[in-house]
């Protein structure tokens, strides 16, 4: 082996970069409100898209199915709402505080859940999320069923007046893009390569000397923090933090979004989030039927569209999406 000459390598099929598609996605999102799409709707969808991307980092690239991700969305929501309203922190600091709070909770939950495998991992996250839910239901500062209302927006970074809808929109878009790019970089980093190896075959990764529990914990905390970033931003947008964001239904919704868009794809969670949020918006008049329609979509995805919309497109185009 020592005598084998080292040759320069050029991959036979050069990997096609996703950069142009990412640029295109950002451009489309940036002009949406100018085309008459209701900015509030796009901002909501962007927050859920970031939430779904954070969730997808775990299920798609580490193979960990968290059934309790709403706890990170909601914790950051309450933390940033409290910080902005009670402590009077600036919006960027409130968001940062919420993000860190969820990241810290992610470390704690991760330490407990990571040791379980497969469905036991999922059940553990669900159980812990329910405990967190009951805590918020009882705690004083969350104001129970009322939630924290009238969260102030103020000046973002001291200069951007986010009480103006369009300014708020571009701030939210910037936060989404930053989170999206961080996730994109993570899955294309040396760390991401190890995560994929763990997803593919954990015992083999261990046998190569990787302490996989630490990698899984790091990924879990990162995902929790990014879900928190989404939750904190969402609270600044809607100006209220409520129990809706910590309910188990919310944990289910993010699974649905990711599944519809395409698990383990880069753009799938974004597409899935927009579809589900649009459905809730435009089908609201059907009342309870929205749930039924969502259920049907879920079943259709599981049965026919296993790869989700983006996943199927990627297969047809024979490239990563």
């Amino acid at each position, binding site marked *: 082996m020592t005598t084998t000459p080292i040759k320069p390598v050029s991959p036979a099929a050069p990997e096609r970069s996703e950069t142009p598609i990412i640029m295109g996605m950002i451009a489309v999102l940036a002009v949406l409100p100018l085309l008459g799409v209701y900015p509030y709707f796009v901002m909501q969808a962007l927050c859920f898209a970031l939430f779904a991307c954070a969730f997808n980092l775990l299920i798609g690239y580490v193979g960990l199915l968290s059934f309790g991700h709403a706890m990170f969305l909601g914790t950051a929501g309450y933390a940033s709402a409290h910080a902005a309203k009670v402590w009077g922190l600036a919006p960027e600091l409130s968001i940062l505080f919420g993000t860190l709070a969820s990241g810290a909770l992610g470390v704690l939950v991760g330490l407990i859940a990571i040791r379980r495998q497969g469905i036991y991992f999922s059940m553990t996250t669900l159980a812990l999320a329910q405990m967190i839910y009951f805590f918020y239901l009882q705690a004083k500062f969350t104001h129970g069923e009322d939630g924290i209302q009238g969260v102030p927006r103020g000046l973002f970074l001291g200069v951007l007046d986010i009480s103006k809808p369009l300014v708020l929109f571009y701030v939210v878009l910037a936060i989404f893009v930053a989170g999206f790019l961080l996730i994109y970089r993570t899955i294309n*980093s*040396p760390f991401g390569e*190890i995560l994929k*190896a763990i997803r593919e075959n954990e015992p*083999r990764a261990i*046998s190569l000397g990787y302490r996989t529990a630490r990698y899984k914990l790091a990924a879990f905390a990162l995902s929790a923090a990014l879900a928190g970033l989404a939750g904190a931003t969402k609270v600044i947008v809607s100006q209220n933090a409520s129990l809706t964001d910590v309910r188990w239904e919310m944990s289910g919704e993010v699974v649905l979004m990711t599944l519809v868009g395409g698990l383990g794809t880069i753009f799938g969670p974004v597409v899935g989030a927009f579809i589900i949020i649009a459905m809730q918006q435009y089908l609201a008049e059907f009342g309870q039927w929205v749930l039924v329609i969502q259920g049907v979509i879920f079943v259709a995805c599981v049965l026919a569209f296993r790869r989700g919309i983006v996943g199927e497109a990627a297969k047809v185009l024979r490239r990563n999406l």
Partner: protein
Amino acid sequence: MVEDFILETKGLTKEFAGFTAVRDVDLRVRRGSIHALIGPNGAGKTTCFNLLTKFLPPTRGAIAYNGRDITSMAPADVARLGLIRSFQISAVFPHLTGMENVRVALQRHRGDNFDFWRSKKVLDDLNGRAMALLEDVGLTEFADVTAVEMPYGRKRALEIATTLALDPEMMLLDEPMAGMGHEDIEKVVELIRRVSANRTVLMVEHNLNVVANLSDTITVLTRGQILAEGDYATVSANPEVQQAYLGASHG
């Protein structure tokens, strides 16, 4: 003459719910040798490997590697000491390419790989070495093929290349040639002989020609216990071994 054993077990025992898969095994593997572990199906060979690499906790007994007690160590830490195993059922990363499979192992030399903010382009430095390893096992054309698309024999070869990427001091190979065609077997025998020059190999193998050809020492295991040990001539002349082999399987 002082004998130098890289791996030594004492009274190694594994019980599964009352059934003893490995019983009182005292195994000693000489440094730099190729040591074969053979025995009929269900003899406990794979269980032994799982114990040695700490994928299973032993019920009783002790394991020493390089004179160091590793009995209660975590499996990843055992691997970090240079004791790398392969698996009986081919262990590749199915949706990674041949190149990426080997590179995952090469990444270990970077130390911790928690740098999520860095582009994986920093790993391109490893490509040359990865390619050389693939070439060594005849997988040059498979560098860009995902492992799941490779024929079985190629997967096994990829697994060996991945193991070699860590330049392990000792390799445990669980039936590395199972499912391979005649030509591939010869290649892998050659490869094992070559790479064993500066390391120790402990292998489970059913193909007795290969065992006779490659190994310095053979340990025969039946029903979890060591039945015989020695070089091929000694072991194959043992009537109990002949009995065990004829009685249990025809292979």
